[in-house]
């Protein structure tokens, strides 16, 4: 289990103060929102999709340092990726980037909310651009069971 000193390292504190890809995309192709009832973290992700690729991504909302840092990192990972690659982003991709692999159970929701929102945005986009619905249901279930 991480101790407080471990998880609140420089990078987390910096990202929480200066999140990257923070803001809104006016002419987004898809937007998605979700929140954690426990702590009040609340995140929206906007994406611009061109050629089956995420050409731009921004997020806004409020959250704790863990949530803000993880969302920043996730948007950095997602930017420029193809939709297939987005589908395959795994929680360990985000957690390992910030050294949070051993986060306590109560904080994991803070760390993974943005991944849930990203997957939500993805199935919303695919749903409105007609793909096979099995794949969409699978994505939806995956997002719901993330934590």
């Amino acid at each position, binding site marked *: 289990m991480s101790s407080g000193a471990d998880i*609140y390292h420089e990078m987390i504190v910096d990202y929480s103060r200066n999140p990257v890809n923070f803001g809104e995309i006016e002419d987004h192709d898809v937007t998605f929102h979700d929140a954690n009832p426990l702590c009040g973290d609340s995140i929206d992700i906007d994406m611009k999709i061109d050629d089956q690729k995420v050409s731009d991504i921004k997020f806004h909302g409020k959250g704790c340092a863990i949530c803000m840092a993880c969302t920043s990192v996730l948007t950095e990972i997602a930017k420029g990726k193809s939709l297939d690659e987005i589908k395959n982003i795994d929680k360990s991709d985000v957690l390992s980037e910030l050294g949070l692999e051993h986060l306590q159970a109560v904080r994991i929701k803070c760390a993974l909310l943005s991944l849930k929102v990203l997957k939500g945005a993805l199935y919303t986009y695919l749903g409105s651009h007609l793909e096979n619905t099995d794949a969409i249901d699978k994505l939806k279930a995956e997002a719901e069971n993330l934590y």
Partner: protein
Amino acid sequence: MQSTESSFENLRKDFPILTRTVRDNKPLVYLDNASTTQKPNQVIDAITDYYQNHNANIHRAVYALAEESTEAYENARDKIANFVNIKNRQELIFVRGTTEAINLVAYAWGRPHINEGDIIVTTEYEHHSNIVPWQLLTQEKHAKLEYIGMDDNGELILDDLDKYLATGKVKLVTFSLMSNVLGTITDAKKIIEKCKAAGVPTLVDGAQAVPHMKVDLDTLGCDFFAFSGHKMLAPTGVGILWVRKSVLQTMSPFHGGGDMIREVHKYETTWNDLPYKFEAGTPNIADVIGFGAAIDYLTKIGMDNVRQHEIELTKYAMEKFSKIPGLQVYGTKDISKRGGVISFNFADVHPHDVADIIDKEGISLRSGHHCAQVLMERLNVAATSRASFYIYNTKDDIDALIDSLNKVAKVFKL
């Protein structure tokens, strides 16, 4: 008991949990008493004694054990009635807690009494348990839910109440006697006076008030009153609904089943006397008895002493907090108008991060919306940190909190 700090220091020995350590061998500093309190040996022992020596179902059998358990259960009812000055024990119903009490009223009183176009009035600083049951009821009945607003000092704007009462459509006004986030003590007397003048019944959520100050239901004058045992040293799973008898007689049953009946035939049933009509099924006997032991414990200390102790702690904490740059306390600064609950935010650090960092120092502090999201919206914050005190807290606990906040400042380079 003398209201000296040393006598309060002394009662810590009654709470076994306070001797344990948490995280890296840090002494436990428990500051989440608005959520639930710790239990003294006297309460734990009463429950153990019940199971070891007296366990039997109540109101059903003639044998010795059943007689003992029934007597202990009904004794607890009398102790609690006495504690909040309820004159008629028939008006005191055992429930699981405040949440169940309010839902019982919304169901058993609300459904027969609320009609289309009626208004129920609540306040901006209610716990979700005094909002959601009314949303459910007003949606079902096509009635309306309105809110008494709160000013920047954390006090209710009673002009709002006047405005709603003037419509002549208000059927119930419901409010908490003390806010679980801001600690504001509501001017219940004034609200109830206004409602009485308009012929409107009132429900008071006493979950935060009864554990921390003297409450006298005989003089308060409301019609429904709810509180929870677990916030006042008693076990979880037991609480009180008090309803004025003239109102209680107009209510339909809540749950159907054993104990609440007089006679059951194939197609009809007659109801048991009050309060048993509202206590269907085998109740939480052991924990009711534990609640009785908690009442004994608090009675011995004296509720005026409890309040005085918390005023001391709150004053001390507010003074210390005011010296920390960037720390913002919500609600009134007037200690006489607030209980031992302090909600705050620390610069731009999210309350969740504050709670996590100071948890490593052994301090249990609540962060989040405290089941009061309507209030969070009003304060325009996503969450707050909250420290809340009880009889076993000391100035040392507050010093430990202040020290740990310095750690937060260091991590976040404040």
